[in-house]
């Protein structure tokens, strides 16, 4: 467990690297998380993916099929892997909780 801070907002990261709580989260916090995860720049393309993942989670409480994310953005089927290599990185930057062992194994 690690506690981080951005502009006086504290947020906790669990041992797996996932944000402990859904809030606070905003684009600035996403940038802090991205830097921590070794993603150099959160381009617009990457940020779009992150936002769709977050939106999806808020509605379905699940990890989306990656194709759904790309279709939403009207991008190629492999867009998440092209941008992040490991889709879990995008998920972590989106500030979403540990999706469970089976998702991690299959994603």
């Amino acid at each position, binding site marked *: 467990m690690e506690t981080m801070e951005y502009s006086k907002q504290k947020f906790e990261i669990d041992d797996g690297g996932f944000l402990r709580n859904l809030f606070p989260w905003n684009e600035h916090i996403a940038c802090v998380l991205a830097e921590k995860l070794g993603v150099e720049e959160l381009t617009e393309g990457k940020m779009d993916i992150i936002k769709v993942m977050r939106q999806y989670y808020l509605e379905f409480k699940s990890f*989306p099929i990656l194709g759904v994310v790309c279709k939403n953005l009207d991008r190629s089927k492999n867009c998440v892997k092209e941008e992040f290599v490991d889709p879990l990185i995008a998920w972590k930057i989106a500030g979403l909780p540990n999706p469970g062992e089976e*998702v991690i194994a299959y994603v």
Partner: protein
Amino acid sequence: MADKEAQTVTAGAAATTDNDKIQAMLKYDKIDYQTVELTGEIILPTEPVDKCFAHIKPQLLTDKKLLANLGYPTDGLVDNWKEVFLRKMDEMLKKYKSVRVFMDICVKCGACADKCPYYIGTGDANNMPMARQELMRKVYRRYFTVPGQLFGNWMVKGEELSLELLNMWYTYFYQCSECRRCSVFCPYGIDTAEVTMAAREILNSVGLVQKYLHQIINNAQTMGNNLGMQKNAVINALEFVESDLQEETGIDNIRIPIDEEGAEILFVTPSADFFASPHIESLYGYAKVFHQAGISWTMSTYASEGGNFGLFIHNYEHMKKINKRIWQAAKDLKVKRVVGGECGHMWRILSSYSNTMWGPFDWLDQRYPIPEHICEFTLNLLKRGALKIDKSANDEFIVTMHDSCQIARGMEMGGTEYGQFEIPRAVIRYVCDKFQDMPEDTIRERTFCCGAGQGLLGDDMLPTRVKGAIPRMQAYTAAKQAHGVNFIALICAICKAQLSKMFPTYGYPMEEVGGIHQLVGRAIVLGAKEGV
């Protein structure tokens, strides 16, 4: 001052409980793994490949709510663990007579020793099947035989219960994928997987519960699928697949029906088939087969999972509860047939255990197999020319087939002898021109595990997975060298996930891994009118 001293004493005392000690012993550490050079030869190790295997501990489940749901202790190792351990073991030996027989009849001939993929991969003598089972046998001899009870360890080469022994159990019963390859070679027919299953359930009863496996059992029992997807997420995923399929084929009425009452067939498949890659490609294949056959079918959001991890531990209740969802969905949706997709242990449970748990299924159409495997279903259509096939769609592939353990060493398929080997191969031959088997001692009933079956697919098990995959990787390499094979076809979701991770790890493209219905889906000519 006195208070401070008292606190120190308490803290000191807390650090020495058995639970604290075992938690320290089983602490998960990320361990680096090493691959081997692929030569196409399976070489038996003469010494341990590296020394790390005694230190590989899968993560423990610590979520109290989950543990309580599953009926296991919530605070780690229970105080009276020795008592609980022996009581549970006694229960296992009485409930599953087979386990007791297997404890008694091993003569340590060593026929199994070099048959285990984990032993071949790690060279760790504790991974020899008889050595793994010996971990339980020595407890059995000490506590459950008369000479052991009367005269103790020296008489029966037994062992007292200790934290060290628990540590060994947790380590090595989770370096076994219950693939049962060793059982094929055992002259007494000892089913070593049953011993592992019993051992895991005994560990659970004292509070040492492996995270990956049990989190999934809980997901399947509460959400209906291993991935823990809510109903609306399952619907969203299947609707996406359907629209993608319609777009790709240009056919508007090709469908993935969901919860449609009165359909002819209930189709159950692992949730990975509508989540992961390459699994999803097979889902396209199934949908194309059903569409072209013109048979009404449906998937269920209630039984949105074919897999059943309850099999992997000797806890019949978990398995029964998960399995019930399938037959309940079949009843509720008033279907006439149940067809299962590409999943190894799902098929073994559906075909070998379901009838005992929830049968007889006299309310289903008796003219068809109950249940029916998708390969069997597709082969029947192919045999009577009901599907038009363009093999040239798969011309780029020289295909081989990996027999998944739970199917290969399960009961049967199609009601025919060796159907589980012949039916999937026949489907491949109908849709591909070029098929080559891997070496004889690595396929069919002697097939090697993918290296991640039965609860070992977690990321925390990567070092074990990388080593356990060695025999399969070498066999694939041999087929590549001899015949130029460039595609391995499977009918198991776990094998697909494991191999599509191991292939890049060993330097092969992950696109060389896929399902049999992925190949069917590519070759099927939609809209053709022949046969149907």
